[in-house]
């Protein structure tokens, strides 16, 4: 887990297009970007104060998509909250399900069969592929590459979504994990189709990287833009690829070792500079590591049940106590904090959303850059408003 055994991040530093500062210091211009601006990834508003094109002040405004997720979780049974977790980060429902299932399993002391643990790892890594592929597409879309990279990304994403659909019945709102295992076993031939996809994914990444990684426009738009110092990232509680791009080798799959991750061999890519390009590159490298984990998991997956026979769906009352459990979601640390008072509902239900906490640094990243760069920086943070607002 060190930076030395990784390939160098940027092929060569590209030329930097400097923001042209207005020499005629006039009035500051306040612009309300969003909530219906296409570049804000949903209903999110940035109140920016501009000097010419340079961002002088930026205030993120969110909450437009608030739908009381946590309060609903306190008033419904443990099982009934599971489909709501799909709607947090609606690109990565499988990892949300896993984080919540893990919290309830720890609260009630339930075991998970081996095959289910393997399935969870496979699904979580597929989700990571899906999320990072989409992110690269969105980032390029924000940078002005209308269409092409995004469409290529969505073409591959659709293949993974087809797999999710044939497993769980729904493309995005999977609602697949249960306390004590997975809802159903993989249908016949499903694992083979995953194998085929994983074997082909490296080739797609090669193609995608040929399209993007060495692209001078991408480098000019992202390198040295939105630099995040490691110390600031740590003190602000940033997690996930954004933290690793800042050069902090912190990955819960290694640190916490939940699930069966200690059984798999993979590396944690970290960035050198903490800029937007590093955030893009760390995700590409993470996808390559995900492919390695998937290959190992697909080789090692045993036969057997996917559900603990003692697990109960209904009438399920964990002993009084509290638990915080977290996993490394594609966007960062997604955690669930539950307090049980022995009833059928949690007494307190709280989500630690990685998107929201990563978003809090937006102003620090954007100051001094042009407004067009702010859009790219926001794209590289990787937010989903369903999770930010909950």
């Amino acid at each position, binding site marked *: 887990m060190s930076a030395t055994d990784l390939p160098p991040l940027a092929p060569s530093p590209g*030329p930097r297009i400097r923001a042209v500062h207005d020499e005629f210091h006039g009035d500051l211009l306040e612009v309300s970007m969003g909530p219906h601006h296409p570049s804000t990834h949903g209903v999110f508003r940035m109140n920016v104060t501009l000097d010419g094109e340079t961002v002088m002040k930026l205030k993120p405004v969110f909450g437009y998509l608030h739908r009381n997720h946590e309060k609903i979780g306190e008033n419904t049974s443990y099982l009934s909250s599971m*489909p709501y977790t799909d709607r947090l980060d609606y690109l990565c429902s499988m990892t949300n399900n896993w984080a919540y299932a893990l919290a309830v399993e720890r609260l009630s002391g339930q075991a998970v069969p081996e095959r289910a643990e393997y399935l969870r790892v496979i699904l979580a890594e597929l989700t990571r592929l899906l999320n990072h592929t989409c992110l690269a597409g969105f980032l390029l879309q924000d940078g002005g590459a209308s269409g092409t990279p995004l469409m290529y990304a969505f073409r591959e994403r659709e293949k993974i979504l087809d797999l999710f659909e044939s497993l769980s019945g729904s493309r995005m709102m999977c609602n697949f994990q249960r306390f004590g295992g997975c809802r159903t076993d993989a*249908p016949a031939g499903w694992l083979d189709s995953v194998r085929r996809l994983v074997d082909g994914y490296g080739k797609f990444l090669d193609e995608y990287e040929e*399209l993007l990684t060495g*692209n001078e426009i991408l480098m000019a738009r992202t390198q040295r833009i939105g630099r995040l110092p490691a110390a600031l990232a740590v003190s602000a509680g940033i997690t996930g690829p954004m933290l690793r791009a800042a050069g902090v080798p912190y990955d819960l799959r290694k640190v916490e070792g939940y699930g069966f991750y200690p059984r798999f061999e993979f590396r944690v890519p970290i960035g050198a500079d903490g800029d937007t390009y590093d955030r893009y590159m760390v995700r590409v490298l993470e996808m390559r590591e995900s492919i390695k984990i998937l290959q190992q998991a697909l080789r090692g997956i045993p036969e057997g049940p996917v559900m603990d026979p003692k697990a109960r*769906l209904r009438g399920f009352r964990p002993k009084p106590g509290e638990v915080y459990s977290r996993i490394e979601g594609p966007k960062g640390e997604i955690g669930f904090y539950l307090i049980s008072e022995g009833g059928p509902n949690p007494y307190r239900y709280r989500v630690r959303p990685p998107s929201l906490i990563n978003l809090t640094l937006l102003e620090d990243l954007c100051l001094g850059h042009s407004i067009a760069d702010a859009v790219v920086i926001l794209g590289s943070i990787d937010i989903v408003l369903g999770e930010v607002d909950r």
Partner: protein
Amino acid sequence: MLGTGLLKGLGVTAKNLVGSFYDPKRFVTTQYPEERTKLPEAYRNFPFLVSESPEDPMGTLRCVACQICEKECPPQCIYIEKSRDKKPDANGKMQIYPAVFDIDTAVCMSCQICVEVCPFDAIKMDQVFEIAATDRFTGLLLDRQALAKPNSYFHQIHPTEAEEVDGRLAAARRAAEEKARAAAAAKAAAKAAPPAQPPAEAPKPAP
């Protein structure tokens, strides 16, 4: 050299463009509605109620109005009213049936929890998705007549699951019959045998 990366990327785009005319692997678009993709067996959309016979769907609903799904439904889109009388179910046992069973599919979030918690395999997920309606209440608020679909339809859309459910129900039915027969035999045996002599009356204690 400046621009090499750009040209390489353009090469990829060109390859994809040309490939999209000739390479079947790159034909990714399905021309809906002329063409349709095959839905996976697990695909789910909205729930329906399973009835045993297509001729008398209301009389042979498996649902016994236990209201577990109503209670567990996360968005609370199910509304059930129990019947006042009872009707025989598939096993001949007298059961309550749902006098009203409404599902508001405008509220339903297709999570399948009603299916999982149902102890009677009475509610299952449908695969119909072209259900646009101009009026929220007539088209999307489904009552029990609209929800009832025969078991043969369930076999058609989810063959593997339906086989499993039928096997389980048949086993339960056999067990119930066995139990009934054993009970009947025990009753008959008790009748045929001479009634046991009542124990000799104990001398009453003197008052």
